[in-house]
């Protein structure tokens, strides 16, 4: 079974938020909430400044604290693609998963259940890419099976320098950010 993950090239991302709009449209995300977002990090001292733009979302962690703390099993790792998913009908809205996520990736849907990025599982099952990946105008986002050494994501991680967010939190995220210039 595949273990889906995402690779995002920070050198190509311009922060246009097409991915955010595509997600909100595809998944009918309610007003005031978002399943993905743009983070901009400026580091250094003038004039030696550098800026990194990242499209962020649920990291589909291999060691997911949101799943471990869920009292009803609503948050779970699905068989399909080993994705961290939520069964709305099992969620009681206790918000423990919101408190457990170091990335702030979850929110409470106005209907009462916890909500977050699903990697557009419904699209994956139709053989399509997640909505955010499919609309990216700079082609900075790649999606695939991290366990398949021949997949595009595995080859990118093999050939380029990458990082994950907050590795020190021990969650083993499955979204990788390429940090070097493309060859």
């Amino acid at each position: 079974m595949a273990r889906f993950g995402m690779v995002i090239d920070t050198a190509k991302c311009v922060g246009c938020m097409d991915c955010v709009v595509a997600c909100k449209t595809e998944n009918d995300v309610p007003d005031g909430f978002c399943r993905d977002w743009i983070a901009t990090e400026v580091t250094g001292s003038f004039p030696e400044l550098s800026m990194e733009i990242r499209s962020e979302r649920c990291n589909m962690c291999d060691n997911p604290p949101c799943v471990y703390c869920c009292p009803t099993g609503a948050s779970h790792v699905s068989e399909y693609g080993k994705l961290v998913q939520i069964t709305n009908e099992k969620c009681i809205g206790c918000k423990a998963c919101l408190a457990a996520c170091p990335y702030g990736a979850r929110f409470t849907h106005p209907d009462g259940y916890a909500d977050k990025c699903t990697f557009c599982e419904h699209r994956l099952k139709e053989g399509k890419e997640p909505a955010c990946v499919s609309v990216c105008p700079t082609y900075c986002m790649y999606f695939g099976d991290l366990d398949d050494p021949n997949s595009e994501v595995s080859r990118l991680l093999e050939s380029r320098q990458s990082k994950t967010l907050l590795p020190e939190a021990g969650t083993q995220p499955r979204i990788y950010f390429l940090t070097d210039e493309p060859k």
Partner: protein
Amino acid sequence: MSEYTTTNSNPFVDMSHQVWAWEIPVYLFLGGLVAGMMVISGYFLLTGRWRDPRSACHALPLWSLVLLSLGMLALFLDLEHKLYVWRLYLTFEVTSPMSWGSWILLLVYPALLANLFLTPPERLRDRSPRIADVSSRMQAQTSTVTAIAVVNIGLGILVGIYTGILLSSLGARPLWSSGLLGPLFLVSGVSTAAALVHMLAEVPEERAFSARADIGLLVTELLFIVLFLIGLMNASKVHQEAASLLLGGPFTAVFWVLVVGLGLLVPIVIQSLAVARRIGHTPVAPLLVIAGGLVFRFVMVNAGQLSHWTPT
């Protein structure tokens, strides 16, 4: 320099995203208070104090049932998907402290009811001959009294620790990343229960006992708080920043003045003077302990939610 901006809606930008409001601190406070009352009433059963009809242990089970139900109501109010609450009891998630807690709380009610039937308040006993009969039969069997005492003490300790472990299991909030929160919340819960017993007690020996117990518990709680802060200050940068919320940050004044000063130190002094018979027993110290316990939970829950790994 590192500057981070995000388009994510998060609690720092939009307060509607705050995870837990007043309900959870109130639930943790009442849960801890009831846990302590179960431990103390179990102790009174084991030591034979229940034989005195004026003993506070006759009031504790009913108080516990009412306060626990209020706590559960607060927890229910916090749920965003209320109609699905029964889902808690269709599964047991071994890695989830909340799942453990919901099942333990299910056991607490029968344990409290058994204790209530064993030591009913005098009014209840007088009004209901059937309850008086059941109570007499239960009291006649020493093994029943011992079993109810042990079960109440055991469940009380589990519930008290659970109220702290619930927070400490959420590693994304560095302020809560300490195994000491379990024993700290347990001791705090038992200390608030001892304070309530002090106010309920009609027997002078019980008042003196609860005052002595409270001194020991408050000193232990103070020690745990110091160890908790030392642990955070010697951990990673995010943990040090989390501790700084209480050491110079926005929660410093309320924590050190209301929780440590008025909730721990002042009651220790007052109860020490009362035990030494320099002053009489008054409800001042117990009320300060109970208020301090409530404020402590508000501080821990609110400051914990402000502590974070991600840049803001």
